[in-house]
């Protein structure tokens, strides 16, 4: 039996929250769901723009090269594509998704420090606009974050205004990312419902806790690189021309030399743990082990700081050093836990197909590296293959994981059922990513450069797939106008607390919080009531 308790002599949570919600606009809201959705939309749009730019770069009117992500020069298009996709898009999508879902999983009525969260979101958006303006107005002279080598300027040579504008925008984005991570971390530690101990948190919430810690550590180091680069460019220094300067670039600026390179794919591992458990309708096999492995995968991304350019001549790059290769171990073991859990039966859902695509993308670089080792790929061929690996692991895996997580949590994020369009979206994303990486792989195996045009088509497919993620947002319903809890549980029969709230969730998140005695409170409740799980 569930009893709702109201505060003596006070009105209910709903009646307090609803008038506040009515007064709030998107500019003044402190609601974690609205702020998270805002970040999601910005992130998805940014990735779509980045992929269109990548398609342009790889087309005959552009440079017609195998990839836009690692160009060593200072092309405005490839630089903008890298920034839009990796620095703005992926962080915004994942932070937005976690901002919406994690407080619901914890039974929190709101996020901790909502004004800090709002500052982070609006700071991020402002930074993204500043960066976009820098690229629109003129060509920034470096820095191309996808390049492993910094642009070395002559003594006394100062950067143009848009370069400084770009760096200022990137610094604002980095500060905002750190603040968003602080809000997430503090929410997990202080806003959990009564009974929701740390060990009872779902795997996604655990990976959010670990991920926000990694993001804070990484943001500080990235900011130090940005600040040094700003001072160097602003005052005409020669920092990167010094011996050792390129190492500073590699570990503090280069996209592949920082934990963010793998962090978002690692968060995908945590998200799919909950997806698999929900649709297999039982807790994961060896749940504590799965939780430990997912957390280990997130913290293992810190090993990305061990990257160096000597690894780039290897066809197995970006996991080109033994230390970085360790990331694959907990990730691979977590996948085995999923497969073991699914053996007991499953209710098919589009998000599970995304999980299958995600596993495929995690396995693909290993298969290609094995083939390259057999054939004996080396030199320029190996470098080209590395570009394919980067496309699959750094763009494909985290993007597909985010799209799968969005498909799974559509009722809580956008307020409707998972759209059948999500299957088309899966095909677009998976096909696009494989097509985008294929030219780099093919050139690595000795084919002509002419195949680069196929990558252009792949990038367009990915952009279309990302744009399709925004379709549910167009049909999003207002809080309070949704279905009952039973409808959700009919589709999902979820195990964790986010499925105990109406769809879409009201401003105060929960009217009633079920008793929490384990990491799967709804599963416990159903079993207690004698309903088969």
């Amino acid at each position, binding site marked *: *039996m*569930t*009893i*709702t*308790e*109201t505060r003596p002599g*006070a009105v*209910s*949570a709903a009646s*307090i929250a609803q008038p506040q919600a009515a007064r709030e606009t998107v500019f003044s809201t402190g609601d974690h769901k609205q702020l998270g959705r805002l970040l999601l939309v910005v992130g998805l749009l940014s990735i779509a723009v980045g992929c269109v730019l990548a398609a342009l770069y790889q087309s005959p009117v552009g440079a017609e090269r195998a990839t836009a992500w690692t160009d060593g020069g200072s092309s405005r298009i490839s630089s903008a594509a890298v920034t839009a996709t990796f620095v703005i898009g992926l962080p915004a999508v994942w932070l937005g998704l976690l901002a919406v879902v994690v407080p619901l999983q914890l039974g929190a*009525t*709101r996020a*901790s*420090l909502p004004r800090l969260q709002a500052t982070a979101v609006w700071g991020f958006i402002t930074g993204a606009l500043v960066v976009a303006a820098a690229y629109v107005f003129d060509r920034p002279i470096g820095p191309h974050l996808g390049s492993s080598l910094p642009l070395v300027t002559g003594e*006394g040579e*100062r950067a143009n205004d848009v370069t400084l504008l770009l760096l200022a925008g990137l610094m604002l984005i980095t500060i905002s990312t750190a603040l968003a*991570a*602080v*809000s997430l*971390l*503090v929410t997990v*530690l*202080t*806003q959990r*419902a*009564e*009974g929701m101990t740390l060990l009872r948190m779902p795997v996604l919430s655990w990976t959010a806790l670990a991920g926000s*810690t990694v993001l*804070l*550590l*990484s*943001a*500080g*180091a*990235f*900011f*130090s690189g940005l*600040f*040094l680069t700003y*001072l160097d460019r*602003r*005052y*005409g*220094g*020669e*920092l990167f021309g*010094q*011996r*050792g*300067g390129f*190492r*500073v670039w590699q*570990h*503090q600026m280069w996209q592949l030399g920082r934990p963010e390179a793998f962090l978002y794919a690692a968060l995908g591992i945590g998200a799919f743990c909950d997806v698999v458990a929900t649709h297999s309708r039982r807790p994961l096999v060896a749940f504590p082990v799965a939780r430990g492995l997912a957390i280990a995968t997130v913290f293992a991304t810190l090993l990305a700081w061990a990257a160096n350019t000597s690894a780039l001549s290897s066809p197995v790059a970006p996991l080109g050093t033994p230390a970085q290769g360790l990331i694959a171990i907990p990730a691979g073991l977590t996948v085995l836990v999923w497969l073991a859990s699914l053996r007991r039966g499953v209710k098919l859902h589009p998000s599970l197909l995304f999980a299958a695509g995600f596993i495929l993308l995690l396995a693909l670089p290993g298969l290609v590296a094995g083939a390259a080792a057999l054939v004996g790929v080396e030199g320029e061929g190996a470098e080209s293959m590395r570009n394919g690996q980067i496309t699959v692991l750094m763009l494909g895996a985290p993007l597909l994981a985010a799209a799968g997580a969005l498909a799974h949590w559509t009722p809580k994020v956008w307020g409707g059922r998972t759209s059948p369009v999500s299957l088309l979206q899966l095909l677009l994303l998976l096909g696009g990513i494989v097509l985008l990486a294929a030219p780099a792989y093919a050139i690595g195996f000795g084919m002509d450069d002419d195949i680069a045009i196929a990558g252009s088509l792949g990038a367009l497919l990915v952009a279309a797939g990302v744009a399709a993620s925004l379709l549910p947002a167009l049909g999003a319903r207002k809080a309070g106008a949704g279905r009952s809890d039973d409808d959700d549980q009919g589709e999902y029969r979820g195990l964790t607390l986010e499925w105990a709230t109406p769809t879409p969730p009201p401003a*105060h998140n*929960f009217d*009633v*919080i*079920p*008793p929490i005695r384990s990491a799967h409170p709804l599963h416990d409740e159903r079993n207690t009531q004698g309903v088969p799980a």
Partner: protein
Amino acid sequence: MAVPLALPSAGGTAPADRRSAFPLAVVAIGLALTTLTAGLVAAYLTLRSGAAEWPPEDASRDTYTAVTLAVTMILGMVTIEWAAFSIRRRERGQSLAAMAITLGFAIAFINGLYYLITQIEAGVGDSAYFTVVHALLVVPFLAGLLALIFVLVTLVRNAGHQLSEANYWLMRGTANFWHIAAVMYIAAYYTIFITK
């Protein structure tokens, strides 16, 4: 089964969780500031290992001021903890005195560090050494400025009877931030003036 539901506050007082959220948020920000400082120190050491001449001949270092600033920050760590302790013991007069002394230390630190930065006779872009030294000193300067604002706000709220042993979170967060700013400066000082 009865489960108490945490209702949002109707206004007036801060929600109970905020008391522990703010100091925790400051510690989390401290994580990022630690790696920010560590990144700058790492850049300094990496560039030093590759340079033929480090520091350059024309680099002048005002060690006396730098040491004084380090001592100032350490003394501030003591006085701000004194203030926090006094609030918890309901010794309002002592806490106000300790906060006022800490505010004095904060102003002295900002003033002294600004002087130290202006005493670097070379320009920011004159060599990699000067670029990274400026960065190492400007970052603690900004952190010190934030600490000064925190101390000022806490002092004003304490003077206005808004802090007590039950409403202690602002004081604890301010003290945490002071410690972080102090560690940032001491790391920069050690790197530039001790390891050289």
